[in-house]
């Protein structure tokens, strides 16, 4: 033990000597600790703590915490992480029990089997109740190791996180550094160029001015020279004259003198009279024009000022960025430009050319390169353009870009939706005054519990306001519709629930005879006693004119359909199916485009007919049906009638229906018929 302690001390000393050797020194130290741990030593726990604490000191002193972890051999970490014990300060009875059960050491001579988290030292479990760790939290070595390992891994992951953050930060910094450097370089280049420009301009100016002065100088010198020559000549003339005069004066011959003196005298007088121009012919002053340095000054000014930005570029509309009242408009600038703010102009585009499009463009000041324009009309086009402004000036306007708001959500028309176990026909109103590109229908199958909805299925690019969708029988679906234009899809419409239990349809009230009224829920038909004068009846193109009848809007799916009608025993009725174009001025069943069951009250009995083309088989029915089930099977080409209360089969028409048929209902005397819809077809309908 002494040996180990000694070695350790040496190493610790070495540590303090040279920080550079830290890494190298970690290994032996750690190894040493491991050795201490694993060897069956005749050492007390106190002794063992000595190297440990010194190691801790080392690790702290050397600030090597980042590196220190990988060098810790396993099983050792518990001793190496101080600190977190305060978490465990509360005494735990379970732990004490566990401690007592798990102890292995029976005497001091055995290796420590427990660990005091307060003192951070290994100890013996059996000493716990009495020893120095009496009031401390002492746990089994194994457990302590695990706890401390956990702590370490937590710390490690925190550190790793921090490192990642730091790395990110560093890379950000690097980016910034590069950007700054680039910008600086660009600025420098810019400045140099500018100064070169200025210097060039100045040099040019200098050359110009110098040559101008040179010319002036030459002219002046020439004129002076000429003057000088003139003076010289005059002096020569005068001198010659004086010499002549002197020569004459000295002449002894008076006669000759007198003879000749007069012209000379005249000339002298003349000369004397002649005023000599002694003024310098040219101005000595050079004409120096005031140096016009304003342009240079401007150039100098622009060196420091940022250039006015160039026209920004409008970005095309980003999909799904619009709503029905707002648009997110984006544009971009040239990277060299400095912009203080932008001004975004917008103006609606009306396809209708009668509307004047010279509406005032609205303008808004924006700091960013995007702006969300609100309070717009839905499904409408707007054009946008933008200018950029900085201290120097304003850029030209960008090109105009056209953006489009998304449409308003469509409105599903529940009364015009129809379904059967295999399919549903959904119809809706566009919800927008102007056309949209297409519609999207979303379909969610409701789970067993109504709250859990499964995946959404979408049908896209529906060109019209209706869609026939395939469904699974016996399910419940939530249906939404969205309108789509180039701006993106609208919000969802109100949901519509389709239950594929049975066939469901509504009455086509536009086909109803004027005397036939339909209840508010759309499923009960009345033929009232009140006589309506013929003049008050309004017959449309599509209304039944003779038979007090109405058609139902059955889904156009060649499948099996079932519906029921509740009748009164005293009502005369015709119920069945008819082609949509069945004659409106004929009685149902009286032609080859309708098939129906007719109930006639005779004074003696109830008579039932199954009419098609005006013919009925002779059939007696003893039990008067009050709820009549009708089963239409396109595949088998059958239309069957049942007494639904009894499950009694009444009659089956055999006919290959060439077109889609619609349920038809007619009243031959005042009364009511109640349509029962969305009913699961009874099993027996398939057995006929």
């Amino acid at each position, binding site marked *: 033990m002494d040996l180990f302690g000694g070695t350790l001390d040496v190493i610790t000393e070495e540590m303090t000597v040279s920080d550079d050797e830290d890494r190298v020194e970690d290994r032996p130290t750690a190894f040493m600790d491991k050795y201490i741990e694993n060897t069956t030593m005749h050492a007390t726990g106190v002794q063992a703590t000595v190297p440990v604490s010194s190691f801790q000191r080392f690790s702290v002193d050397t600030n090597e915490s980042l590196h220190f972890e990988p060098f810790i051999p396993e099983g050792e970490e518990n001793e190496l992480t101080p600190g977190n014990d305060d978490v465990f300060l509360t005494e735990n009875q379970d732990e004490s029990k566990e401690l007592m059960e798990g102890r292995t050491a029976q005497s001091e001579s055995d290796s420590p089997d427990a660990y005091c988290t307060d003192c951070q030292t290994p100890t013996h479990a059996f000493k716990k109740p009495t020893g120095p760790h009496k009031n401390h939290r002492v746990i089994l070595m194994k457990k302590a190791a695990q706890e401390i390992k956990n702590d370490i891994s937590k710390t490690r992951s925190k550190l790793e996180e921090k490192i990642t953050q730091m790395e990110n930060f560093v890379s950000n910094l690097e980016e910034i550094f590069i950007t700054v450097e680039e910008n600086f370089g660009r600025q420098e280049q810019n400045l140099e160029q500018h100064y070169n420009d200025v210097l060039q301009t100045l040099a040019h100016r200098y050359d110009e001015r110098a040559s101008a002065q040179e010319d002036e100088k030459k002219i002046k010198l020439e004129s002076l020279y000429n003057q000088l020559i003139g003076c010289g000549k005059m002096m020569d003339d005068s001198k010659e004259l004086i010499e002549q005069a002197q020569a004459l004066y000295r002449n002894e011959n008076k006669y000759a003198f007198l003879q000749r003196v007069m012209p000379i005298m005249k000339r002298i007088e003349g000369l004397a009279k002649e005023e000599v121009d002694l003024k310098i012919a040219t101005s000595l002053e050079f004409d120096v024009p005031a140096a016009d340095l304003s342009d240079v000054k401007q150039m100098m000014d622009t060196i420091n000022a940022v250039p006015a930005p160039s026209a920004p570029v409008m970005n095309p509309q980003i999909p799904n960025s619009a709503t029905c009242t707002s648009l997110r408009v984006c544009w971009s600038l040239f990277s060299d430009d400095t912009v203080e703010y932008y001004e975004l102009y917008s103006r609606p585009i009306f396809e209708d050319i009668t509307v004047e499009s010279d509406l005032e463009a609205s303008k808004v000041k924006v700091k960013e390169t995007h702006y969300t324009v609100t309070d717009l009309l839905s499904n409408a086009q707007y054009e946008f353009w933008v200018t950029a402004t900085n201290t120097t000036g304003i850029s030209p306007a960008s090109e105009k870009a056209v953006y489009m708001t998304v449409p308003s959500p469509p409105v599903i028309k529940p009364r015009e939706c129809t379904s059967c176990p295999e399919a549903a026909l959904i119809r809706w109103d566009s919800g927008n005054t102007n056309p949209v590109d297409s519609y999207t229908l979303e379909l969610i199958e409701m789970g067993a519990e109504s709250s859990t909805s499964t995946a959404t299925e979408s049908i896209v690019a529906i060109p019209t306001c209706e869609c026939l969708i395939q469904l699974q029988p016996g399910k419940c679906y939530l249906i939404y519709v969205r309108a789509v234009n180039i701006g993106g899809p609208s919000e969802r419409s109100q949901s519509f629930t389709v239950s594929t239990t049975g066939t469901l349809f509504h009455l086509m009230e536009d086909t109803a005879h004027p005397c036939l009224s339909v209840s508010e829920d759309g499923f009960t038909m009345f033929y009232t006693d009140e006589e309506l004068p013929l003049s008050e009846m309004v017959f449309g193109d599509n209304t039944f004119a003779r038979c007090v009848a109405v058609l139902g809007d059955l889904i156009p799916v060649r499948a099996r359909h079932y519906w029921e009608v509740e009748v009164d025993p005293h009502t005369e009725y015709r119920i069945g199916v008819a082609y949509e174009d069945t004659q409106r001025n004929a009685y149902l069943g009286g032609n080859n485009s309708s098939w129906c069951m007719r109930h006639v009250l005779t004074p003696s*009995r109830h008579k039932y007919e199954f009419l098609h083309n005006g013919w009925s088989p*002779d*059939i*007696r029915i*003893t*039990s008067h049906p009050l709820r009549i089930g009708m089963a239409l099977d396109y595949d088998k080409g059958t239309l069957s009638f049942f007494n639904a209360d*009894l499950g*009694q089969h009444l009659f089956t028409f055999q006919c290959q229906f060439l077109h889609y048929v619609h349920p038809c209902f007619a009243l031959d005397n005042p009364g009511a018929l109640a349509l029962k819809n969305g009913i699961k077809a009874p099993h*027996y309908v398939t057995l*006929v």
Partner: protein
Amino acid sequence: MMEEDAGTSARREKRFRVQTSEKSDVSMALVQVSSNKCCGGYQKVFEHDSSELKCKMKFAIYLPPKDLVDLYGADVITKAGLTCTEQNFITKAGSQQAAAEHGIILVAPDTSPRGCNIEGEDESWDFGTGAGFYVNATQEPWKTNYRMYAYITEELPRLVNSNFAADAERVGVSGHSMGGHGALICALKNPGKYKSVSAFAPICNPMQCAWGQKAFAGYLGPDKSSWEAYDATVLAGAYSGPALDILIDQGRDDQFLSASQLLPDNLIAACSQSNIPVVFRLQQGYDHSYYFVFSFISDHIKHHAKYLNA
């Protein structure tokens, strides 16, 4: 006359097994007379000693293909009319196709005891042999052998159920003419026993027609009150029990209809009164022959299948 016994269809039985009698009092020994494959199944004829009729009796049974029996698994019994044997129905009615489709066993018994050596037995076609009228005779010399009602409603079903593992709970009954009468009275006298009932041109009100009066007087004696127990119209007026859905087809050009032997209007009136659901179809141009039965047998098999396979 013929009686048609709609076959009891055995549910899960692949092959029938001929058993010795399990019940000591009834002889269950069946002797196969013939067996022919038909529509994927088998048309067989068996002979046995009848305890009710005290003579040898034959009955025909159609066993539909095994897989269909498994699929549907329902049972029916049917009867034939005046003068007929078990052969008439199976050879003329064309019922096997539809029975095979719906997995229904068809049982067609004879119409009366045969070879009992009763005086006057073979004197007329509408009384005695071939004209048992499905009554339990009370008058000498008929009362020992002419117990067709008991034979049809008790002995034969027991025989079929024990030998073919047919579902005793799901039995329908049908018949033509006298057999139609038999089918109607079996159903009306035993509420709930037959899940389905149908008839072709049945004798609806035998008490009011010449055939019925002759047979009833002979078998049951002059007391007309005892006749009422075997008259469908009378029984319908007094019926109370589970709703019966009765399908009746009648040829419009039936010579016996115009001869007032069948009297369906009386039955319809009675059923209307007691609210028994009947669909009565007067088929234009058809007469009383088996061509008429053949034309509508599949509707009737479907009618039975609807209730038996429910």
